[in-house]
């Protein structure tokens, strides 16, 4: 329990640190007047003074930080100056389920693919499975997910849409609550695009871990105990090999939510946080971008903390740390 408290405490600390960094980037980068940045291109003097007042530009830095956090998380009345009157936080809240659907669905698929691939590759070491996993692994770190998404779109939406892929719905998103079947169908290709890439990496990492684990002394002990090869692989080798995969999962969940998923949303026309960020990037709507970054970053930190707690469940040695 002490471990849980410690881990959550450090997550809070990291969130605080990130918010400071974001604050400094947006409000204290040397260059032009930060108020002019926030107000957007060609803002009128009235808007500028409005921004100055709302974010306390006449006051010292710590006060400005508090004001920013207040607008973001307490009163949640941060408004876009480009699309005047649009409240930012409700937009994010609306977009969040889309991003979560994309990321979590893809994560489930890639974990299954990755674990399955890694275990298969270990069972059939030295067969064709090995080079296949190797190729996918290299491709996964070399392919831009958004570009793969475009290729997938080109094939499923256009080139083969009249034949093989006539069942593929047009780009967009259908909420789960409205129609679960359509929800899954609309998300299928975005999921697969992400999951194939990440699944390849996981299969490769897990295979390397498993091959190492199968050479460990405790595997020999298991054999000397008379355990079946299957039990040794599943109960002994796999358990220890999962730890690096889990910690990788924490990192990837973060990079996915804040990166690859963001780009995938744009390509597949999914109105999630990534699409929101993209839209505001097109007209440099800084308040929205700032809010998206902070919310996404906080979500990532929370996800990492959860993954770390999971890690401690899997590997008892971590709990002492």
């Amino acid at each position: 329990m002490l471990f849980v408290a410690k881990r959550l405490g450090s997550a809070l600390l990291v969130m605080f640190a990130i918010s400071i960094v974001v604050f400094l980037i947006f409000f204290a980068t040397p260059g032009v007047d930060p108020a002019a940045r926030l107000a957007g291109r060609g803002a009128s003097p009235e808007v500028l003074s409005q921004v100055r007042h709302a974010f306390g530009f006449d006051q010292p830095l710590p006060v400005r930080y508090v004001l920013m956090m207040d607008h973001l998380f307490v009163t949640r009345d941060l408004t876009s100056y480009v699309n005047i009157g649009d409240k930012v936080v409700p937009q994010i809240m609306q977009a969040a389920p889309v991003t979560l659907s994309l990321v979590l669905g893809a994560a489930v698929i890639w974990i299954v693919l990755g674990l399955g691939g890694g275990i298969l590759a270990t069972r059939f070491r030295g067969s064709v499975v090995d080079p296949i996993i190797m190729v996918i692994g290299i491709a996964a770190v070399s392919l831009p997910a958004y570009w793969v998404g475009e290729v997938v779109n080109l094939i499923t939406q256009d080139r083969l849409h009249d034949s093989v892929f006539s069942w593929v719905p047009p780009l967009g998103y259908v909420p789960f609550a409205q129609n679960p079947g359509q929800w899954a169908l609309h998300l299928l290709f975005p999921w697969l695009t992400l999951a194939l890439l990440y699944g390849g990496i996981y299969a490769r990492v897990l295979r390397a871990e498993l091959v190492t684990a199968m050479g460990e002394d405790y595997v020999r002990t298991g054999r000397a105990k008379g355990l079946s090869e299957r039990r040794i692989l599943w109960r002994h080798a796999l358990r220890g090999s999962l730890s690096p995969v889990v910690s990788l999962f924490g990192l990837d969940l973060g990079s996915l939510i804040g990166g690859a998923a963001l780009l995938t949303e744009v390509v597949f026309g999914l109105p999630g946080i990534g699409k929101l960020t993209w839209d505001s990037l097109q007209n440099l709507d800084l308040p929205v971008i700032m809010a998206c970054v902070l919310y996404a970053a906080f979500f990532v930190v929370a996800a990492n903390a959860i993954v770390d707690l999971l890690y401690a469940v899997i590997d008892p040695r971590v709990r002492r740390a």
Partner: protein
Amino acid sequence: MVEVTVAIATSERGTPRSRRSAGPWRVAFTQIAHNPVAVGSAIALVIIVAVCLAAPLYAQFIAHTDPFQSNINGTTVIDGHSVAVLQQQTQGLGLGVEPIGPTWNISNYFLGADSQGRDVFARLLYGGRTTLLIGFSSALICCALGALVGIIAGYFGGPVDWVLSRLMDIIWAFPVYLLAISLSVVLLTGGLRLGPIVIGPSNLLLPILIIALIYVPYVARPIRGQVLSLKNREFVKAAIGLGASDWRILRIEILRNVLPTVIVFIPLMMALNMLTESALSFLSIGVQPPNASWGTIINDGLDLLYTRPAVAIAPGIMLVITAVALNLLGDAVRDALDPKAKLRGAA
């Protein structure tokens, strides 16, 4: 003990450093040279770099085009007929214009035109120059900076280490794309002004520095760990015991042992950085017009995806080939120099 003394003594006499390190370096080089995958990747990279460097020659002497000048009303000659580069779209919804598609004629709109009538192939080559330049220089800066931070933190320890490590922790915990987006969007709206230094919003230095900065912890963390364990090795302890200065130990014992890892990171980092650059450019916060990069061309092609897919697909293919070659080469270099080196757990 004796060996260390000798080593220090010889280097004091100014023995060329290469004499002691020639052995392992040469062994590694031979191993890479005998690895067909590595050699193939290296050849592919050389070709890609050479072709991209030749972009101005191609534009001027073969295609006779200016890839940065929009050519909305231009015409070109195909099969003896004069054709408008941008045709009014007649089919489908009939909205907008349709650029001409690939002619597969190397001297004339080889891959067709983009929505502004510019030669896609020429832009592809120019874009390659930008992407490769950003990838390479940011990888170098990132590895140098990461190594510096890692060595200083690991070697001096104490409060220096604490501050640097916490700084790295924060950047590490910050999702890289979000950090890059924050930095880019702020710098692109006004450029960077540090006293007398002014970097304009469209300067390529901005994406280079941003990308280099966000990946520093990827390099600094493993290097710090390596320095920490080196510090406890006998030969370093012996050097300390013999009263060698910090500078000498850093230079002779630490740097020399850390260098292989840093070199292993460079190609892997370059692949990662190129992909990041493209992603940022795709989001329109990386390379700014009039410059083009593979990422910005993919972005240009997004609206033309179903009519003229070559615009978005071609730069993607170039990007993937380059990244695969770099990753394969990086893996080979790692196997030869430092098999245990890991870039962020994965790959």
